[in-house]
């Protein structure tokens, strides 16, 4: 399944309280993603909490958008990405 980087903007800032409600909100997103065969891997949030960069696995960009739509998450841009790390070439030596 392809991996995508999804950029989102939250003009009012992203607020997820570290309470039972916050936990419920996140699990809700996970459930709704599952209906589209989309997996949320992890997100990076800017310090002002206005932008997020999220890594997702999913069947297509349309599925990523549908999943975002059912969780009411904004989508600025979707890019298809793959993993590169500093030790990428070590195995090939």
């Amino acid at each position, binding site marked *: 399944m392809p991996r995508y980087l999804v950029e989102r903007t939250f003009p009012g800032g992203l607020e997820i309280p570290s309470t039972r409600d916050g936990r419920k909100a996140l699990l809700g997103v996970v459930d709704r993603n599952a209906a589209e065969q989309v997996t949320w891997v992890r997100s990076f949030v800017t310090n002002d909490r206005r932008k997020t960069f999220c890594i997702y696995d999913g069947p297509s*960009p*349309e599925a990523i*958008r*549908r999943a975002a*739509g*059912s969780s009411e998450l904004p*989508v600025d841009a*979707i890019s298809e990405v793959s993993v590169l790390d500093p030790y990428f070439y070590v195995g090939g030596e």
Partner: protein
Amino acid sequence: MLFERDELLADLTALVERARDGEGSLALVAGEAGAGKTSLVSELVRSAGSSVVAVVGACDPLATPRPLSPLLDFASDPAAGFMDLFVGDPNPTDVFSAVLDRLKDTIRPTVMVVEDVHWADDATRDFLRFIGRRVGPTNAIVVCTYRDDELTIEHPLQVVLGQLVRLSSTHRFEVPPLSVSAIETLAGDRIIDASRVREITGGNAFYVTEIVAGGEALPPTVQDAVLARVGSLDAQARRVVEAVSIAPRSLEIEFVKPLCGAAPDAVDSALGSGVLVADGSALRFRHELARTAVETALLAPSRIEMHRTMLRLLEGSSDSARLAHHAVQAGSPELVAQYAPQAAREASTRGASREAAAFYAAALEHFDLIDPDEVARLRAAYGSDLAELGRSDESLQQLTMAAEFYRAEGDEMSDADMLRLMSRTLWRYPDPDGARRAIDRAIALLEPHGPSELLGITLVQSSSLHMLTRRRAPAADDARRAAEMGAALGSQTVKFRAGVSDACVEVGMGDSTAGLAALEMYRREAIEQGDTHHLVWVLGMLGSGGGEVRAYATGIEALEAAAALSASIDQDINTAYSYAWMARIAFEQGRWDDVAGHVAHVEAFMLDKLDVATVTADGALGRMRVRRGDPGGFDLLRRASAAGSGLELQHVWSPICGLAEHAWLGGRGEEMASILEATWDRSIATDSPWAHGEVGFWMWKAGLIDGPTAIAAEPFALQMGGDWGAAAEAWREIGCPYEVGLALADGDEAAMIEAVRTFDDLGARPAATMLRTRLKELGVDHVPRGPSRATRANPAGLTPRQLEVLGLVAAGMSNAEIADELYLSKKTVEHHVSAILTKLEVDTRARAIAVARDMGVVAT
């Protein structure tokens, strides 16, 4: 007695009970040869007893199967109630519908068994597809057994199974191998090394039984086990067994004596040994594996002799496939030449092209023994079937030989008819130029003979070819001449087809409004005449023609009708093509959330990845991704352009424009020339305003041309002519918001700001970003984002998909029904519904509907 099948039997019995309650199903029972599929199904039928109507049919292991063999079995069983199935020579679709109608007995559900579908002929596969898709709302369970280990990737049954397993009414079961302890139980008192038997047989139920029956000494192979058992019979009984082995299904008892001279009591001892079983008034092997083991062990001379005797015994029989089988096995050219042609024609009539082709091939192998006139007719029919099967080279070869014969005979009419068929094959090849040459020659041959129905049909075909290459004058001329000829001859068919061709010319290259109106008239005519074939054709033309000239309302309505009608008669290619055009229209109208759903339908119905439906669907999805700036668009467009390069212009110009737009949005305008040039040359060679318009527009954007051609479609022409305001207005009228944005982007500062908003609204990020940069250069620093279209349109904050779901909830549909309707999983629909309830702050569906109506979100 069955071992280790309780669970399977319980599951199947549960399905029978559900059928009683109106929830029908298709059960696919898979397993290797000898796994015990038949025993399982027989046990199901036995245990259900008289509370069900049991109907059993099987596919033939004949070299070339008898078309619709299982249905012929149904019809021959007086208890099944299908005796009149084939009375009056009905066409296959009518037969299928008649079967379906009888599956609605609410008191006694039907258990319909179709054995060995891996041997099914084309027509039977069509039947399985037909019944599998419709069994859900009946009171029946249709059980199909098949050997999954014999299904290669290219096996024609794979496509059918692939489509059927997607349905919620389809259940798949696997018959597992027997365990060591089951083998022990089976062996009873006999001392046997059960683990060793398990090893030799792999737990295959039939093999296990054969080996256990064989006694203490374990034979090295299963074939040895079978032969050892036959070898232990007395000479007379052995001859009975050998005689039965040459009959692939079963052998009528009365044929035993003439075949092998055995006395009647020998039949009893063969039955007593358990090698054979009685099946009504016929004998058969307990398993096909045993039959082949015995048949292969026969010495050739005696095998051939028996096949010849069989032919004498069957003389006068109407079972042409069975006759042809024995003729081939008898190795007698005369007999093949005598029986195969009839078998071929029957298979062709029943819609079993593949089987027909096999019989034609067998017959024509001995063409020197057949009357030359008949050979030519066979070649013509064989050529048409081969074209159906996509075997174009062979098709052309056969048709050419037939044409040469007619030419030598001086029969110009038939020669022309062959050329007409060749033209059709060449078109699918695809070789449009070759198709043109063949049809021109056919017309030249026919004209001196004066008006005829054949000339009329040939002119219609010629008009269609001109239409497909978008050449107006010759297409219109041929259609007009055909119409006159149809009127003069009083031929309804020629008149109708000529009229539709003429209307298509108008839609694509003339007065499209008048053309579409004429097509609507022919649509009514086809409905009145009850001619489904013509109706599918006209709807397809209305849909794709309406789509091409951007008459969207007409196009969508026709495409939905076309998709529904084609699906109801299992014309999958037409169904897929209809959904592909729905995807293209959704893309052009800016309804981008709908595109992927239509494309999923195309994938569900499409058989061949290189067909026009896939090219059209890939084009729409690819262009949408490019406009959204989403990944994957370029690859899809490149695939569509490559696959479409051999197809007519109308299938490729949109993906090619998409590639050009991709380069333009990426700031690589210099790449546009090489993308567009070949397609531009093809476009200006046609009389198609929309090809001139759209391809021309991107040529103009690339700075390769200065303005529109004379016939370019109006909105594109206006913009290329510099009148961006009128262009934007025209696009708004047609309903293409992205194109409105493109036109406004050419305007003054205010128009450009409006264009940015239009692009934001659509989620067209690359175009919006590009325009923001240009505005910045002009000193306009910041164009704020407007609210997204979705939120603005729906005060409750529902997404378009949620709104769609809510509408269906309000229409009284269940989650399962909504899932079917929207092509979503039931789980997705559940999520949407719960999201809707949360957003509307209600806790029941009924409250949600009420709130939605109050807010005006759905119609009251």
